[in-house]
């Protein structure tokens, strides 16, 4: 019984982690940006979806759509207003740009967090689930919403895989992540690729945020922990490796679920963090990292 419970709950939470971390890994792989406003963008999507339901009386689908749209727009604003100007700046030395972007996205995330707390308070918000009710799987009473979350996560990840491997634009993105200089030599504008990758990331952030809002709920306090969990999953999987991030998401998700069920919910995150430290010692580039 506990075995099935861990299997089912772990799968749902891991799928959500996977979706959240995929976009984070993608933009690092392609443009070398570690976006520390990641958690804030997800929370913005959740609060927008919640507000759509409560203030505008939108239905669950319209609310979810608005949440994804706000997540997407906030991500594009992050790119055009925060990241791109620093990347293109002539006043900052090339080797210092990474740290500038790191600091700028961190501050941007805090600004979003404070704005949300100011207008919508720091109490947790949840998005009305699209599917309600429970389904029994091998005796485990599973919320239908949990299954819905896992299915949507894998649909979106599948679509992303098709986009990257089966379309011309996607192949250019993949090439850019392997060798940016090589891509420019082929006549492809790198800035166009960046915009495409950030747009993909924006959709992923929006969808992951809204699903998280339906499944567990978030508050403005979640901004830090969400960024930290995406960061540690990506570091564990290997910076820049999307498939590494997917595997790491399942490792972390199941490790947390097993701890919560078999030891205590209070120690949920500890083993995954210990594992991260061990991996850093033994294999600093992460599970599937290339650099």
């Amino acid at each position, binding site marked *: 019984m506990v075995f099935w419970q861990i299997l089912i709950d772990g799968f749902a939470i891991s799928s959500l982690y996977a979706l959240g971390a995929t976009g984070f890994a993608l933009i690092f792989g392609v443009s070398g940006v570690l976006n520390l406003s990641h958690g804030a963008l997800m929370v913005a999507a959740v609060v927008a979806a919640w507000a759509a339901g409560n203030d505008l009386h939108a239905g669950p689908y319209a609310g979810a759509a608005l949440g994804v749209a706000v997540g997407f727009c906030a991500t594009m604003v992050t790119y055009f207003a925060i990241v791109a100007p620093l990347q293109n700046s002539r006043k900052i030395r090339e080797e210092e740009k990474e740290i500038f972007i790191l600091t700028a996205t961190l501050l941007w995330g805090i600004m979003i967090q404070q704005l949300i707390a100011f207008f919508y*308070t720091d*109490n947790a918000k949840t998005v009305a689930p699209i599917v309600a*009710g429970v389904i029994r799987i091998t005796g485990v009473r599973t919320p239908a919403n949990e299954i819905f979350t896992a299915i949507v996560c894998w649909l979106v990840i599948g679509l992303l895989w098709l986009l990257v491997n089966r379309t011309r634009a996607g192949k250019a993105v993949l090439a850019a992540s392997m060798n940016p200089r090589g891509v420019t030599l082929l006549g492809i504008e790198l800035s166009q690729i960046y915009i495409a990758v950030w747009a993909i990331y924006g959709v992923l952030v929006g969808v992951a945020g809204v699903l998280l809002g339906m499944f*567990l709920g*978030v508050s403005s306090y979640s901004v830090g922990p969400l960024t930290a969990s995406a960061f540690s999953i990506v570091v564990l999987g290997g910076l820049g490796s999307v498939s590494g991030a997917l595997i790491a998401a399942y490792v972390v998700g199941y490790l947390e679920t097993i701890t*919560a069920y078999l030891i205590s*919910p209070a120690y949920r995150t500890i083993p995954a963090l210990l594992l991260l430290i061990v991996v850093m010692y033994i294999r600093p580039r992460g599970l599937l990292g290339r650099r």
Partner: protein
Amino acid sequence: MNKLIKHGVSAPTFMALTASAALVALAFATPASAQSNEPIKIGVIAEATAVAGSSIPQAAQLAADEINAAGGVDGRKIEIVSYDNHSSAPESVRAFQRAVNEDHVNAVIASYISEVVLALQPWTGRLKTVMVTPGAASDVITQNIAKDYDHLKYTFHGYATSTSIADATCAAAKDLLVGQLHMQSAVVMSEDAAWTTPLDEEYVKCLPGIGIKVLDHIRFSPDTTDFTPIFNKIEGEKPNVILTGISHVGVQPTVQWKQQEVPIPMFGVSSQATNSSFWNDTNGATEGVLYQGFSGPDVAVTPKTLPFVTAFKAKYGNNPSYCGYTAYDEVYYLADAIKRAGSTDSDKLVDALEKTDYVGTVGRVQFKGKDSPNPHALKIGEGTITGLMLQWQNGKQVNLWPLNVANGKLKFPPFIKVGSAN
């Protein structure tokens, strides 16, 4: 003078010192007439961005406006000076220092977080400034006063202690859970925080007394986001009811309880459920949740309760949170104490506050005396403040207990199976 000179202070330096001392003395000796027209300043240090905390400065301001409109305290206006502490103890301490040293407030109303109040408590003694809390619950606050009365007597506990809250919950459980639903077992589920330690101790002590066996006692981190494993564990133990002790969390466990259709009712302290916005925050998942309170939107606990709620709603557009009621009362009885003391001097104010006998929005406010194990704690029980037990029903907070002020009956959503467990 000679002595000073002998100790190496030269005559000109001494003259200069005397002159500056005289200037300082002059600066402080403001004429009596100016003093009497100066506003009485009350500092409010609160969690302004948290739903429950946001009512504290708002309710305090409302009370001040009402008192000022009625002529103030002996002609002196009340001025509220607000500080947002971002739910942080260090920020609250800085705000307290600023309030006393720079803004020269006469008294402070502070926070609904026990950890914050406990951090401020030594500062009330160091800076000799009266502080009343509208929402913190830890028993340690008043236990500290008992240990070091002379130094910490400036702290007043304007909200019930955790032990009294647990007792009030047990009293309601006796009538509702045992009397009406014939329940026999419970699991205590609370967040790991300063205020829940005495609460849980008292739950475990008083529940067997009313015939409810405590099967387990689960404490979880306030950072918990996924409550599935906790609910699964509780369900496996087959209790009739979950006794809650939650305040920092609220929306997430409630939503997940509904989403997972946990068939066991939740009953007890759930501070966020006291907010009128809780229904929207949980998208209605709170249907059927029972929570202890000292106030409710349509419950006329005293003749002052409903007029306060109406005025608050008219001014701010929403119902006050639980600490809004107490913050509102606190401004009134601080003003009353200042009037009786005839002074804003902190020691005189403490003496006057100890003699408080004021009917406010939550009941009759009286403080326990110096010789009690909990000096300056509110007296709780019949004749003073009894507390309520409310339930969320169809988007409304319905009061079920005590029966003389009840405006509804127990009702649960379909997934709750009352009495089917053992």
